[in-house]
């Protein structure tokens, strides 16, 4: 598995990213007003000078409080947005973004129709969908409901279907954003098994979750972020321990 040695799967070099804090929709009159007196929009710095590299086959957890920049890192990795400064390099290959399961799912369409649409959005070809279709259904355990409109599904069922499609595309990099809490315990177990299977077959995993217990079973390394900066980067055990004790201290301070 050392063919691609030296070339990282994901490489962030001095990455800065900020977002404008504009309130709501921008209309023509706002644009015109800005033409005449340019007032600076307040910026929210999501990432400040972030550097890290992930080798192929590594599984890395991102931890930190809300707004620390975890999701921004995931979105930069999937190239949904671009950094303000610095570079983001991602190994060429298929990325499975489990960012928001079921993006593109429509409640009025049947489960089956949604599978086809979602799979093609993720980049599957017609042949690949046809070949994988039965596997997707088997894993999701939807049964007869597959020909019913999605709005008749329970949240858990819809999530199972979405997870099944997203993980069937045989990704090289798997991006997981806080999803494994959905569904019942048995299915959660099944999802975990599938992700562990990806790990064993040498796929790269980048994972965000607030459940530290689960991160410890899925990942070997953790990056702790605070206000857009990397605080600690290393083996998952010590980093999570340091993060948890810092959180406790913070809680004591804010309580006292």
């Amino acid at each position, binding site marked *: 598995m050392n063919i691609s040695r030296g070339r990282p799967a994901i490489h962030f070099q001095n990455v800065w990213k900020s977002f404008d804090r504009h309130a709501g929709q921008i209309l023509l009159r706002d644009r015109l007003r800005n033409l005449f007196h340019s007032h600076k929009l307040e910026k929210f710095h999501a990432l400040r000078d972030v550097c890290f590299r992930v080798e192929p086959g590594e599984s890395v957890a991102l931890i930190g409080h809300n707004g620390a920049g975890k999701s921004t890192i995931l979105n930069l990795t999937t*190239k949904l*947005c671009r950094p303000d400064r610095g570079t983001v390099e991602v190994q060429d290959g298929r990325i499975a973004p489990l960012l928001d399961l079921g*993006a*593109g799912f*429509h409640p009025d369409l049947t489960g089956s*129709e949604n599978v086809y*649409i979602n799979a093609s*959005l993720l980049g599957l070809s*017609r042949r690949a969908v046809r070949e994988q279709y039965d596997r997707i259904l088997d894993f999701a355990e939807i049964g007869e409901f597959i020909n019913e409109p999605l709005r008749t599904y329970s949240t858990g069922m819809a999530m199972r279907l979405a997870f099944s499609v997203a993980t069937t595309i045989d990704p090289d990099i798997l991006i997981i954003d806080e999803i494994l809490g959905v569904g019942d315990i048995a299915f959660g177990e099944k999802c975990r098994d599938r992700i562990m299977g990806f790990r064993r077959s040498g796929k790269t995993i980048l994972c965000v979750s607030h459940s530290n217990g689960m991160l410890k079973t899925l990942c070997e390394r953790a990056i702790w972020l605070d206000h857009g900066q990397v605080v600690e980067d290393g083996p998952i055990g010590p980093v999570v321990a340091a993060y948890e004790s810092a959180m406790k201290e913070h809680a004591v301070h804010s309580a006292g």
Partner: protein
Amino acid sequence: MWHGDYLYLLQNLVMKDFRIRYRNMSLGVLWSLLNPLIMMGVMSFVWIIIFKSDKPHFAVFVLCGLVPYNFFTIGWSGGTTSIVENAGLIKRLPVPREVVPISTVISCCIHLLVQLLLLLVWAIGSGVGMNRYWLWLPVVWALEVVFVSGISLITSSTNVFIRDTRYIVESINLVMLWLIPVFYDFKEIPQKYSDIYQINPLATLVIVLRRIIYEGQSPNGTSYTMLKLTAASFTVFFIGLYFFRRLKPMFYEHI
């Protein structure tokens, strides 16, 4: 970054739009027929009864203008809002963004197809008749799709940054009904305005459609009209594509 199958994705998105649109309507595709039929009825009444127009086959005459106009307005306004309406997709998946407005425009084709059939059936039934120039119809239709996709690429990306673009589009659509020859004949336009009038590809589309179906003549007329229309439609499309590609890296932050 996205290594998928563009055509398969496009096909799936078109089918999705189409299914959603028609599954929620009890009358389904019949809605596409109702609109032009009512318009045609009202217009025939106004022009034949009130203005005493003596134009033969006035219904066919009006439909030749209404059918491309309807597709233009529905396709363009749908295309304009498509990126913002699919914000969930744009923010979540690295799908090629161009596919979104283009698939929205194409999914309006079924609407056009139904109306076009109405026009053709009416033309045959009312005695205007078929002719060999009908073979041009798929070409004319394809050019309209290319043209509407092109302007939708421009306005859908603009609409991300300036959200009232869609209202501007609605206004242009209203005005457009009078700037293309739907209720009057292109030949009634004074010579000195006719060149500038024809710059509008939609006006030319109506002129061409009317030459084929209503007058039973070659769409080319005396001045290579089809060639000009092709050039104009593709130019608009590629300008739209260029414009869209310049703006799309900024979609994420503004949507």
